[in-house]
């Protein structure tokens, strides 16, 4: 018994003493606060801040010195100076003599935005088509879609753009032999010429009609939803939306035209001896850039769409079928909403990629933000820092705003688990 008690006591005593020694070890000064992860963390961070600020300091002092030596002005005052160069495509009034560098910036930005917006529109359609085609049961269609994706994804966009540019330009005739496509459309090596709209004073009626249509759609959808929740009856929402949003403005236009107050007339391009004048001109650079961006991004979107559809498990389709839904309803109500949850985030990043890739316009001379601002304006003013900060700021803003919107969307559609 004695030994047993000893045996019971000993470890306790030993444990107690070991606790004591641990306490005495952790107390200062032996292996002191330098082993505290908090202290170390602060030390590392202070070190990082010190190194980064030193680098910034050196860079800034060097930059100031170099700029002074090269006699380059600094500050954003140059945006008010006269530009003195022309831009081949501008959505706003722009002339070499009367416009400033600030105007040039806006022209470039608008050109970037318009090619991106149109590109996103077409690439979505093409990408979804090809993505669905890759899943087709039709062997031929699936294989052709696969070859399309593999070829387009594995060749640099720059090479594709240069290829399109040569292909587009090379197939177009000299301005003197313009192809008359009828209805005021002409095609030659300087681009596609088409009638430009001239707005009369009554033009306000059409946007007003569109606005009324949008409000009407919104109200109708609310009413239809409430009715369905109450009675289970469904209303033709799609048709009514189409009618209100598209039909109402068109109807307004037609009525106004019949009354004799046509709000939109067209100015046709006139064929001169050497070139076409008047009308609207679409640059071949724009067409080449649009073709390149659209086909290239569509290959990536196709993969996104394919992955999204495959991500919806087969059980979902079967369960929907056993509930008695028709195939069209299964696709519309069960598969697509769930696939969209997977598709939308990478789809947005493809849209951003397209916007960022539109900067490759500089290679074929389409006047986008980079070509106009980082190219011509930078070379003329030499104010590298300001120009680069502004340009990068624009792209960064677009990216960050898009990803912020995306995060909100993700939070809304995320599956709520338990």
């Amino acid at each position, binding site marked *: 018994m004695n030994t047993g008690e000893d045996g019971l006591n000993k470890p306790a005593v030993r444990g107690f003493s070991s606790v004591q020694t641990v306490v005495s070890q952790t107390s200062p000064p*032996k*292996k002191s606060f*330098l*082993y505290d992860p908090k202290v170390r*963390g602060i030390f*590392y*961070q202070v070190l*990082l*801040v010190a190194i*980064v600020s030193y680098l910034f300091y*050196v*860079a800034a002092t*060097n*930059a100031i*010195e*170099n*700029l002074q*030596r090269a006699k380059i002005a600094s500050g954003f005052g140059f945006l008010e100076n006269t530009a003195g160069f022309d831009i081949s495509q501008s959505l706003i009034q722009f002339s070499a003599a009367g416009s400033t560098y600030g105007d040039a910036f806006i022209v470039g930005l608008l050109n970037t935005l318009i090619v991106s917006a149109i590109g996103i529109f077409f690439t979505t359609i093409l990408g979804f088509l090809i993505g669905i085609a890759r899943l*087709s*049961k*039709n*062997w*031929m*269609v699936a294989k*052709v879609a696969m070859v399309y994706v*593999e*070829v387009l*994804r*594995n*060749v*640099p*966009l*720059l*090479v*594709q753009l*240069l*290829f399109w540019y*040569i*292909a587009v330009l*090379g197939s177009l005739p000299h301005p003197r032999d313009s192809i008359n496509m009828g209805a005021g459309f002409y095609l030659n090596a300087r681009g596609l010429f088409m009638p430009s709209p001239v707005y009369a004073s009554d033009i306000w009626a059409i946007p007003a009609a569109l606005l009324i249509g949008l409000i009407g759609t919104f109200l109708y959808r609310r009413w239809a939803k409430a009715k369905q929740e109450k009675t289970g009856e469904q209303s033709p929402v799609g048709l009514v939306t189409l009618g209100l949003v598209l039909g109402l403005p068109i109807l307004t236009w037609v009525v106004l035209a019949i009354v004799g107050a046509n709000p939109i007339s067209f100015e046709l391009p006139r064929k001169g001896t050497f070139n076409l004048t008047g009308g609207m001109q679409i640059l071949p650079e724009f067409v080449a850039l649009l073709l390149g961006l659209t086909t290239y991004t569509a290959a990536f979107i196709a993969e996104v769409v394919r992955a999204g559809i495959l991500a919806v498990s087969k059980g979902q389709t079967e369960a929907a079928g056993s509930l008695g839904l028709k195939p069209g309803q299964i696709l519309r109500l069960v598969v697509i909403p769930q696939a969209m949850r997977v598709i939308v985030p990478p789809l947005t990043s493809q849209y951003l990629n397209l916007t*960022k*890739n539109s*900067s*490759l316009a*500089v*290679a074929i001379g389409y006047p986008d933000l*980079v070509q106009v601002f*980082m190219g011509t304006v*930078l070379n003329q003013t030499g104010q*590298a*820092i300001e120009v*680069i900060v502004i*340009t*990068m700021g624009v*792209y*960064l803003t677009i*990216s*960050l705003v898009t990803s912020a919107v995306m995060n909100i969307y993700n939070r809304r559609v995320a599956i709520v688990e338990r």
Partner: protein
Amino acid sequence: MSTAVDMPRFVRAQQVEALPPPSLTRGPIAWVRENLFSGPFNTVLTLVVFYLLYVSVPPLVKFLFIDAVWSGTDRAVCRADMGGSESGACWAFIRDKINYFTYGSYTVSERWRVNIFFALLAIGVVWLLWLKAPRRDLGAVYFFWLFPIASYILLTGGNATFSGRFWLGFLIFGALVIAFFAFVAAILKVSLRPALIIGGGIVGVVGVTLALVDMDFGLAHVPTSLWGGILVTLLVATVGIVFSLPFGIVLALGRRSKLPIVRMASVIFIEFVRGVPLITVLIMANTMLPLFLPGDITVDRLLRPLIGTALFASAYMAEVVRGGLQAMPKGQYEGAMSLGLNYPQMMILIILPQALRIVIPGIVNTFIGLFKDTSLVAIVGIFDLVKTIEASRIDPNWAAPSIGLTGYAFAALFYFIFCFGMSRYSLGVERRLASGQKR
């Protein structure tokens, strides 16, 4: 018995007429019917696709092969007005210029050095990417240390001729570094040996690197302005991967760090770089780098876009690596910590080997993107493959209508072979890893 006679009234006395034979379920005809013409919609689809192929493929084949001009010494063979054929690709142009497309204007008598560089690169890539290769750890040392030094010496000629003062400075600096490590060890009251080994190792590696770069191997100096073509394309891509992988890992660890400032700095860098197009980064490197350095230091014109692409690629690499780190189960971290490993040990011995392994496909995909993006250095005036083609296109000796398309077809083929190869590799690895998970 009588019941037996009565019952079989419903038994049919005559043979039923045979059903028609089932339509074929196997064989080529059945396959075609099943996969191409299974319904009216599918039939229309198939016919439309056939029409599209009929419209696009024969002209392409005709242009690339049938009507192509395969040999010749100048534009005459590819111009109709000079007796040649201009309806097909002018491969004679590529054959004539292939050396320029490969080496740029690299001194002709020294081009064997570039060939050795290609061979060394191939060895390194195979060693690292072939999962069953022996001693892949040595492969990493080779690819990330020995190979860059060897390439630098081979391509530039080495012989940097550092002054005696430089070496004296380096010796003092090295001694200071070792002393610093010893000092830290003394404060922390840990044994001196590992500190000396680490400090000495760092100084030694840097010293050996510098000594090799300084050494005169008797190779003639070739300025970077002469480099061009595939050499530069592969060089930009290689520098991108050699730099972006380690730097990307550091950034990814920084982004997952518990220290707020470290995390913020990593997030800002990564999101900033990923938010802007590469071309703006390249223009920035081109115009702003010289501004930020003291006036008497000039940065080599080839080095600027190299820095730009490397920084750009590392931000994307960081996100890939972060994916791998997040995919690691928490038990791995906790297990490592409970073994008493500190942070570097835990990362180097436990987490990174596993995390990097599962993101090999992602790394390869990033690398494919990087490889395609190297073509952008052409825009800031570096003579990579695309730029050499652009330059040859306007060569009056080869002024013919089909030259441009031929040149770009060649570039497209070059990039396609590399990128497609890499994407197949990454698919293979993905399948292998997936099969490992299934078991």
